[in-house]
């Protein structure tokens, strides 16, 4: 179990503040580092990877400083965003070289295992220069996994991957997170983070804007109405009963029955509404068929935070 602690960290380049007084702890499991382009995600990841010194504050791995401490790389696996990776080697040679640099006792076996994990064994004897972007990304993954690190840092890992490769990588990261590896990946694409990480750290303009389970974050935003899609055995009767309560501010009724119909409900008081809905349905003898939050996506959380 390995933890990265970022403590009151700021980083500036000349007059530009890239990261402004950020404190966060990244523990086992998958964490998504989310923010628009230029928000400071790469700066943070570079500090966690030991390639940038914090201007103030400290970045530590289980208490050990990361900057200028090459021994931390025994525990860290790094998947950089940049493409440069010794194109004149074959994929297998590249991963073996990484294993040798880690001083592993059997570099070939470790490389074979890592290439197997990312399903790149079949192309291991081809030169990296002939690889597609998704293949390069997977070989980068293999090179980061070859020493079985307890922390994996990935900078925009899904860039340039096709949907199938993206799914495979997500599955792999999810498995690693479930097995207790500390996985941190950055992304500016909401659906990626939403699919993979329930725990997010949001960075906006160099500041730590939010942290935690994004559904909980959404719930804390009480000044923004929550939207629900509800289908029931009697939509109109349910609508009439719900609108009578001050926790709802608007209901739109879709014409039709069953799957075609439905209510789009706007609620301002989350807690009260979640108690109200089942009570009203029971009292009126209405069966609820569907209750789904229609905007509790990361996107709405994100646009809210960015606009704030």
């Amino acid at each position, binding site marked *: 179990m390995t933890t990265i602690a970022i403590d009151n960290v700021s980083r500036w380049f000349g007059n530009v503040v890239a990261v402004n007084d950020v404190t966060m702890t990244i523990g086992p499991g998958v964490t998504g580092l989310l923010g628009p382009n230029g928000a400071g995600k790469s700066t943070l990841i*570079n500090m966690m990877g030991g390639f940038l010194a914090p201007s103030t504050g400290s970045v530590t791995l289980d208490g050990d400083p990361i900057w200028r401490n090459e021994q931390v790389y025994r525990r860290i696996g790094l998947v950089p965003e940049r493409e440069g990776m010794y194109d004149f080697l074959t994929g297998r040679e590249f991963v073996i070289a990484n294993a040798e640099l880690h001083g592993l006792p059997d570099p070939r076996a470790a490389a074979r295992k890592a290439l197997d994990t990312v399903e790149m064994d079949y192309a291991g004897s081809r030169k990296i220069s002939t690889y597609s972007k998704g293949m390069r990304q997977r070989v980068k993954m293999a090179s980061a996994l070859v020493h079985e690190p307890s922390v994996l840092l990935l900078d925009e890992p899904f860039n340039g991957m096709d949907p199938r490769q993206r799914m495979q990588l997500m599955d792999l990261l999810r498995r690693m997170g479930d097995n207790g590896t500390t996985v941190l990946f950055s992304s500016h694409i909401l659906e990626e983070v939403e699919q993979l990480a329930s725990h997010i750290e949001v960075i906006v303009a160099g500041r730590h804007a939010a942290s935690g389970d994004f559904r909980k974050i959404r719930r804390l935003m009480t000044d923004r109405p929550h939207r629900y899609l509800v289908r029931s055995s009697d939509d109109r009767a349910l609508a009439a009963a719900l609108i009578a309560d001050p926790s709802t501010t608007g209901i739109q009724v879709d014409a039709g029955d069953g799957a075609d119909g439905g209510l789009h409900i706007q609620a301002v008081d989350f807690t009260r509404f979640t108690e109200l809905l089942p009570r009203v349905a029971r009292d009126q003898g209405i069966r609820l068929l569907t209750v789904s939050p229609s905007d509790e996506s990361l996107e709405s959380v994100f646009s809210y935070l960015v606009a704030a």
Partner: protein
Amino acid sequence: MSSLYHPTVARLTYRALLGRRRALILFSLPALLLLIAVAVRLLTSADDATADGILGGFAIATMVPLIGVIAGTGAIGPEIDDGSVLYLLAKPVKRSTIVITKLIVAIGVTAAFSAIPTLLAGFILNGNGHQIAIAYAVAAAVASVAYSAIFLLLGTVTRHAVVAGLVYALVWEALFGSLVSGARTLSVQQWALALAQKIGEGDLITSDVALPTAVVLLVSVTLAATWYAGSKLRSLTVAGEE
């Protein structure tokens, strides 16, 4: 495993050096020197002054620094440029080990592509008369060490290492060296020639720097450049995308 030399770093470095297009220059300059030597020898008889002119004027003054630029900057510059150096740095390997290994490879490549052809050309030109071939070959080998260290350092401090290296090699060493006498004291070429002067018989080979001064300067410049390159690599920050 020695703490100064890492075989994997060495393998990656020489494969990068000899695999790229710039390796063509590594092969073409020595080929040109040997071609000139053969042509001169076919047209004229063995002559000490001609041999001295070609080895001193082309091999030592032009070929060695150019090969030094290519091998020294090429041993690290492109990796820093394209970001692949991250795969070396994100490892439990001392940064000084990485720099010293790369320096050893750069010295080896520079010496192989400059000292050996110089020796061969010397034998072709005058059959090593007055020890000229050996003297210039030693000078080339010694200069390889200092050039490699200087240009390796350049590769870690600037993205335009090749240009900066060429400016140093051609403008400083060749141009200023021949115009301003003071500049010659601070010239790797003159330090190396001081050694050649000692080995060569007669007074064909001359240097503006006394041998003790030359040795001290050679050693200290090599050590200082290597140390500084190591400390640059230790605090190498990655240019972010933002």
